[in-house]
């Protein structure tokens, strides 16, 4: 690759090293990163959090933070040195030559500006055309982004649009001045899989229509495999390896790349499961309904309007045997977390019964007996919110032990050591504050805390969705082991069908608070009956199975 003439490249990043100066000294963000992109190509950058992939692609637009120092290297865009550009040059370069879209479209759109105007703004700024002309072209662009009823949508504010719609608006705004390069930084990570599939489709279409070059940053190898011609694998601020998609996926040379591929949930092989053919169900959820009343307004009360209600869960029934594992899947807002909270007693259902070992539980946590509370534990989604930041790890684990008098006071240190070993963390962490841990470590502490109470049923609510894939694979392995060793009954809530397939023998597909499909994982995922389940499965970006040839649109 080295012998190619540089002028053929649209972008070339050469030996880029960037430090961030902090109060603790310089922190290296990138060390000697090089990659290039030819016109019309789609380049994928894949890596985990902290790998430097976002810094690298922001640097292409010279969008680097004030405390960033470029230590070496340069970035050439059509032969021009980007890092040497002054403010006025950058003003033209950004938007007219290269543009960027971000992970979270809701924070990158101005909440008090109509979206059409936000798309038009760049055209007025860069091309000096009138607001009216720009507005008309903005509507046309929104139509190109396959937004239905574009003239009306252009008058909407960002909060009135769905996440997928906002990302379309972001893409329209980025493309307003016909840039040659679009940098997409995790453009679909915040979206549901079906919406993700639509956005990726859209990117493919506009790429062909406009002969656009794209740099796609993602942690999801599945997305990269579907979209890109070439891939750069990054870790700890350095490029591990780069090459064609075919090459990286089929013949990865670097250990890390191999590990990354092996960690993809769709490639995890389900392990053989111990079956418990005992007849009595361990947990029964019968016709559960949860309704939210999002606060009645004073004027509504004065006018005697009925309060607004939202049915989050609508007549859901589930059954689990001892030692069984049920996966609940569905998109955001489908009511999966609400079910979990109702089972644990954090929410009071309006209707329905929850039974453990044939005994009906009181709906509210305060009315349940301590023994019933202890048996039913939950692990939470966001590892950064799930632990008390004022506690040390040791204290986090000690509290439940004391509360339920799981063991005598003298046995507590020993028990804590056992717990921390069970989740494969070093004992030294016990002294640390929970804020000093990484996401994966925190999630393990969260699991250890739930296990401290020796529960019989464990509900895991999207426990891996905030984690990197390699960490996710480790946590899933941990669950699998714990299930086998402790014969836990497990409910796993996830939006990722790969995760569910790996861990659960039963799956429930939810939509708008209702069960769409419920049955054995094999049956539901391999031969889905409902159209919605089929759409959900089809939308998952997968790595191609090793024996099939790689096909992708280019």
């Amino acid at each position: 690759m080295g012998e190619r003439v540089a002028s053929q490249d649209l972008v070339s990043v050469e030996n880029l090293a960037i430090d961030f100066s902090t109060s603790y000294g310089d922190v290296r963000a990138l060390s000697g990163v090089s990659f290039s992109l030819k016109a019309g190509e789609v380049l994928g950058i894949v890596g985990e959090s902290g790998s430097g992939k976002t810094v690298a692609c922001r640097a292409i637009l010279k969008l680097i933070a004030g405390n960033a120092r470029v230590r070496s290297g340069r970035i050439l865009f059509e032969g021009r040195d980007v890092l040497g550009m002054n403010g006025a040059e950058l003003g033209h370069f950004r938007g007219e030559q290269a543009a960027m879209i971000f992970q979270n479209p809701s924070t990158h759109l101005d909440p008090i500006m109509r979206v059409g105007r936000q798309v038009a703004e760049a055209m007025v700024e860069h091309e000096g055309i009138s607001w009216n002309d720009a507005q008309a072209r903005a509507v046309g662009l929104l139509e190109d982004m396959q937004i239905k009823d574009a003239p009306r949508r252009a008058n909407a504010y960002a909060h009135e649009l769905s996440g997928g719609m906002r990302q379309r608006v972001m893409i329209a705004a980025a493309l307003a001045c016909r840039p040659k390069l679009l940098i997409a930084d995790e453009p679909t990570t915040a979206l549901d899989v079906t919406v993700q599939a639509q956005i990726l489709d859209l990117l493919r279409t506009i790429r062909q229509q406009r002969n656009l070059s794209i740099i796609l940053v993602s942690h999801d190898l599945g997305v990269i495999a579907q979209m890109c011609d070439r891939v750069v694998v990054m870790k700890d601020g350095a490029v591990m390896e780069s090459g064609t998609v075919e090459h990286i996926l089929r013949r990865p040379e670097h250990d890390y790349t191999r590990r990354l591929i092996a960690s993809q949930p769709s490639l995890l092989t389900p392990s053989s499961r111990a079956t418990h053919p005992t007849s009595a169900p361990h947990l029964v959820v019968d016709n559960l309904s949860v309704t939210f009343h999002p606060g009645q307004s004073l004027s509504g009360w004065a006018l005697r309007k009925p309060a607004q209600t939202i049915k989050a869960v609508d007549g859901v029934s589930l059954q689990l045997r001892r030692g069984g594992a049920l996966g609940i899947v569905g998109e955001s807002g489908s009511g999966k977390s609400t079910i979990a909270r109702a089972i644990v007693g954090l929410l009071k259902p309006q209707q329905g019964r929850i039974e453990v070992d044939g005994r009906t539980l009181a709906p509210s946590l305060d009315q349940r007996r301590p023994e019933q509370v202890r048996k039913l534990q939950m692990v939470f989604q966001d590892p950064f919110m799930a632990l008390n930041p004022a506690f040390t790890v040791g204290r986090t684990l000690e509290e439940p032990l004391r509360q339920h008098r799981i063991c005598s006071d003298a046995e507590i240190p020993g028990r804590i050591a056992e717990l921390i070993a069970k989740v494969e963390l070093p004992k030294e962490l016990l002294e640390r504050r929970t804020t000093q841990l990484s996401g994966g470590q925190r999630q393990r502490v969260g699991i250890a805390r739930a296990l401290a109470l020796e529960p019989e049923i464990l509900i895991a609510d999207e426990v891996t969705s905030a984690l990197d894939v390699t960490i996710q694979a480790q946590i899933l392995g941990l669950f699998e082991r714990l299930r086998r060793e402790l014969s836990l009954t497990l409910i796993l809530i996830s939006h990722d069908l790969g995760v569910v397939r790996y861990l659960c023998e039963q799956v429930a597909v939810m939509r708008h608070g209702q069960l769409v499909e419920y049955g054995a994982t094999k049956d539901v995922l391999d031969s889905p009956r409902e159209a919605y389940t089929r759409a959900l499965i089809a939308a998952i970006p997968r790595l191609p199975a090793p024996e099939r040839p790689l096909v992708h649109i280019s």
Partner: protein
Amino acid sequence: MTDLVQHTGPTALRRLRSLPLTLIIGGAITLAWLVVALLAPALTSYDPIAVDVMRALKPPSAEHWLGSDAIGRDVMTRIVYGARCDLAMAFFGVVGPIIFGTIIGLVSGYFGGRMDALLMRILEVTVSFPYFVLVIAIVAVLGPGLKSYFISLTLVNWVSYARLVRSQALVLRGADFVLAARGMGLGHLRIMLFHILPNAIIPSIVFVMTDAVLTIVLGSSLGFLGLGVQPPTPEWGAMIAEGQTYLTTAWWISIFPGLAVCSLALGLSLAADGLARILHTGP
């Protein structure tokens, strides 16, 4: 705390150096005033109260470093003894409000619903009175003096802390770690004390430093109006008031106690700034 005891010597020094500069300077100023207040009798040989008309209105000199006032009392001596009174005002003026306000805010934010609605209406009624007028009115009813000053501050100033703590508690009660604590079967009191409070109190700790400054200023103002500390007890605000008539001829009577108020206020605000920086980023 145990950490600090274990690592003395170089480690403690490194720790001190890693603190924000504003906290070090602010803390040093505040600490210096505390030392002055404690060692007052050792720092000066004059009596802060005794009248000596022969020495009245002397400008700063070797004998009276900061001059003497209209009835011959040494200004520096009165400032040094006044530090006791003003520091006590700063401290006790915020203790009542922070305790009372935190309890109300915690209960209000954690339980929400009707309890919250009721407590917040009471709060709004309190806020709807003009602040100074309310403090002065309560002091006037209870009679002048430090005790009524503290009582009136507690009755009026709790609202700031209640609001700060409530807003934090409202967010924290829905946080996963609080739900996790509930899911483990922990009681409401335990959750409020160990899970909500330590995380909700941070803005209040920062605010308390600023509030202490305001408390001193308010106490001084009351002293100025004759509703605070009663003469002849040395108090900075009262001293400024006494010197007012001589401002053109004997400026030192008012200016030096004024500088004392300013420096303590500066010290506390700098400390607050530094504290905010540590607490918000974590240790």
